[in-house]
């Protein structure tokens, strides 16, 4: 029994050390960001935080377009989230609860598009955005990100699981499909809606490749694309680079820490390992 306890203790220690190593890059970025540029590269800068110097943050907020990029990121990510959730929920409801010609085909298409690497489409998506005059606009950032098949798949699973009796009761009372969706299926699944919304928002916020292609004007850039410009502008000012990086990550990191359970749930459900 006691050997088991020692074993458990050792395993816990190893886990803790592993977690500390894993989180170290973020810790180090933070320590760097609150130092002066001179101290960052000086020989006697140790591993522990020894300064609380916020100049790097002030500089990055006021001397770059960080606030503009925040605005673009928040705006586009919010619109993407709302459209993806609403259109996904509507489509999933029809797939789950209604009978119409082409239903099987549509579900097949949803499942298949889950496998399609959208990166392989960027060339023609860009041509399309150019034809629609959407290059360098929010619309250009948003449109190709509106297809998130997994949202439909998850919603359909949850709608399938709602007891049929509830549906029949509403129909007997004279309610129609819209009443059912808005008054029964949607309220019953608020939990999954928030989980999917949070994860969709985080994914949209973090998107790099597409916004990087469709945006060339610095004023229209999203946070992940914009901060790579700072690199060129600041050169080797590491404290400022780290401050910018942490400011860029802060919204999603905070969203994750606040909604940790929801995010965890969303990842597990949307990958199908937990239903």
């Amino acid at each position, binding site marked *: 029994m006691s050997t088991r306890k020692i074993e458990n203790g050792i395993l816990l220690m190893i886990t803790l050390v592993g977690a500390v190593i894993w989180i170290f890059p973020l810790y180090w970025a933070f320590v760097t960001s609150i130092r002066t540029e001179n101290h960052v590269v000086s020989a006697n800068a140790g591993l522990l935080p020894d300064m609380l110097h916020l100049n790097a943050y002030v500089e990055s907020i006021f001397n770059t377009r960080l606030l503009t990029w925040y605005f673009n990121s928040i705006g586009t990510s919010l619109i993407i989230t709302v459209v993806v959730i609403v259109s996904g929920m509507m489509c999933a409801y029809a797939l789950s609860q209604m009978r119409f010609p082409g239903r099987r085909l549509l579900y097949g298409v949803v499942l298949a*598009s889950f496998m399609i690497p959208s990166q392989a489409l960027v*060339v023609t998506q860009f041509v399309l955005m150019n034809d629609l005059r959407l290059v360098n606009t929010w619309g250009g950032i948003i449109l190709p990100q509106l297809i998130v098949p997994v949202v439909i798949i998850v919603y359909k699973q949850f709608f399938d699981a709602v007891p049929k009796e509830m549906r029949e009761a509403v129909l007997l009372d004279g309610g129609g499909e819209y009443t059912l969706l808005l008054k029964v299926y949607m309220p019953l699944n608020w939990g999954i809606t928030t989980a999917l919304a949070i994860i969709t928002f985080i994914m949209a916020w973090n998107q790099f490749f597409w916004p990087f292609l469709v945006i060339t004007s610095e004023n229209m850039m999203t946070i992940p694309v914009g901060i790579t410009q700072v690199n060129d502008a600041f050169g080797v000012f590491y404290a400022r680079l780290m401050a910018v990086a942490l400011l860029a990550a802060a919204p999603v990191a905070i969203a994750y820490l606040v909604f940790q359970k929801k995010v965890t749930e969303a990842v597990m459900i949307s990958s199908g390992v*937990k239903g």
Partner: protein
Amino acid sequence: MITNRRKHIAIAMTLIAPFVFIFGLVFLYPTIRVIELSFTDAPLIGSGEWIGLDNYKKLLSDNLFYTSLKNNGYFVLLTVVPTTVIALVIALAVNRLSGRMQALMLAAFFLPYILPVSVVTQIWAWMLDFQFGILQPAIAFFVGERVPVFRHPVWVMPTVATVTIWWTNGFNVLLFIAGLRNIPTELYEAASLDGANRWQLFWKVTWPLLWPVTALVLTLQLILQLKLFDQVYLLSGGGPFNSSYVLLMMVYREAFQLNNGGYASAVALVLFVIIMVVSVLQFQLLRIGGRK
């Protein structure tokens, strides 16, 4: 009844309309166009001549294509199995904990996954900075000198792979934890009563029951890592001497820098087909492997 049926269908059509419209516009249409474009010599913007299979013939004699293919394969080797093993080990460790401790440890391992890629690359570029990077003394300790890792043909891919594993591993940890939670505890209790030790418990109970999740993680990782672009573009730009040049970078360079829309489409389609074939093959193989 017939009008009811009609109304029912009309409502259904209204509900699916937004998704179907967007899907057709930004997915289906570009898919058809990319196939079409790959048989032309079109620039990125504007039309071109139909040139049949010329782009594909050119591809087969393009050295950069083979270099990219090789680098993609190398990167898959460096990431897929290692990240799966690391994630499993972490999941087993975290799953033993409970309550706040478990939530805290999980957060530590998961946090990098929710960071934007450019944040990840900036932090690691600083950590590995040739002159001032905190990891350079450690590298010097092991190999005798500082290494400019992102400008070194041998170091670049393993380093990008390490950064990638650090960044994306949390997702796999979560999947494994979900899988571990789905294993009934009675099975462990029964096996323990039969005198099984930790090692036997793992190989006789955990491993076989976790196999579907392991297969899923391996497949998802394979697809994800074949689509490598962001990290390698931001960390090394495909260099030095194309030693980290990959297929998606070729698509990007041909389309957006060299203005060869048609040729870029051909490369994109080849990548597309590789991903589809490899993922279907691997999934089938893993399913068969799991049935033994």
